[in-house]
């Protein structure tokens, strides 16, 4: 099974039916897979805080949500994470491309990469870093953890993970 199919299978097996995405090159394959899934309503959003609003609404409507985005979005969504997702106890798995790590061709991506884990730690958001392809084996448990705890959880997927998964 491809890594993209595996991610979507884990989402579907955990009852995730509503996924919003803001694209990243590293995430193109998984976003395409989400779009094709008959079990998931895929709603692209224009900005990640908007997407978190959509997810909060879907959760209150009885659908488990998830967001797929780039780590630069942590800079966009701090307020929404604090005052909506965390304040109201809303579960939100965040599958995040960890740009700016080893293998990164674009220097500017490093500028947010160096802040990513610190910001997530400052927000007390449980964070998992997928570096090797087999790290995907934890994804199912991470999804269960997010919905159990009603908390946002970050899964940072770096270039080595995506390269190894090919």
């Amino acid at each position: 099974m491809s890594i993209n199919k595996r991610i979507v299978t884990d989402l579907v097996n955990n009852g995730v039916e509503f996924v919003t995405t803001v694209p990243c090159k590293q995430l193109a394959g998984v976003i395409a897979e989400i779009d094709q899934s008959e079990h998931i309503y895929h709603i692209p959003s224009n900005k990640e805080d908007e997407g978190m609003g959509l997810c909060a609404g879907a959760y209150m409507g009885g659908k488990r949500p998830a967001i797929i985005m780039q780590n630069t979005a942590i800079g966009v969504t701090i307020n929404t994470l604090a005052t909506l997702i965390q304040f109201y106890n809303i579960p939100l798995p965040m599958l995040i491309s960890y740009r700016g790590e080893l293998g990164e061709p674009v220097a500017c991506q490093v500028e947010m990469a160096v802040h990513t884990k610190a910001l997530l730690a400052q927000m007390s958001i449980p964070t998992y870093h997928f570096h090797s392809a087999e790290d995907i084996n934890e994804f199912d448990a991470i999804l269960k953890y997010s919905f159990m705890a009603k908390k946002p959880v970050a899964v940072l997927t770096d270039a080595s993970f995506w390269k190894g998964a090919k």
Partner: protein
Amino acid sequence: MIRYELLKEIMPIISDQLVVCNIGLPSQELHMLDDQPSNFYMLGTMGLASSIGLGLALAQSAKVIAIDGDGSVLTNLGTLPTIGNNPANNFILLIIDNGSYGSTGDQPTYAGMKTSLAGMAKAAGCDNVIECAAEDTADALKAALAGDEMTIIVSKCESGNVKVPVIEFDAPVIRHRFMQEVARRNA
């Protein structure tokens, strides 16, 4: 007519509907006028009432009214194309457009100047957009609730506020009782 008077007038129409209400004074006014488990009060996060409302409408079948403001829609303009391209026929977005940031001291917004939110919503792909005077909002809302088409109502009202108490509910309590009400309506 200011927003408080408008909310008072539409209260009998929205009292039994699922309502997602914008941060600040709009939520506080709604809470003071008619607190209901079917009301979701935003205590923070400027701009996301329309997004939360759309997500909710797409996830279940009961009608949803999102009460938003011109300032907060301007904060989250990306919401309009998302709404336009993901039509939920159980969704009504009521933008109370008083041309000002009411909760922060009535500073003017661009919607009170050259910018038309109704025009922007149409350009974003929303098919059923109604701009009306505050006095005609109740009728527009009734028609939208009676119909079966996603509706954006831009209600032009005057700037101004009344004194209202803050909402004392904890956020998870608001969320929990709202979710129970949503579940009850979809049972």
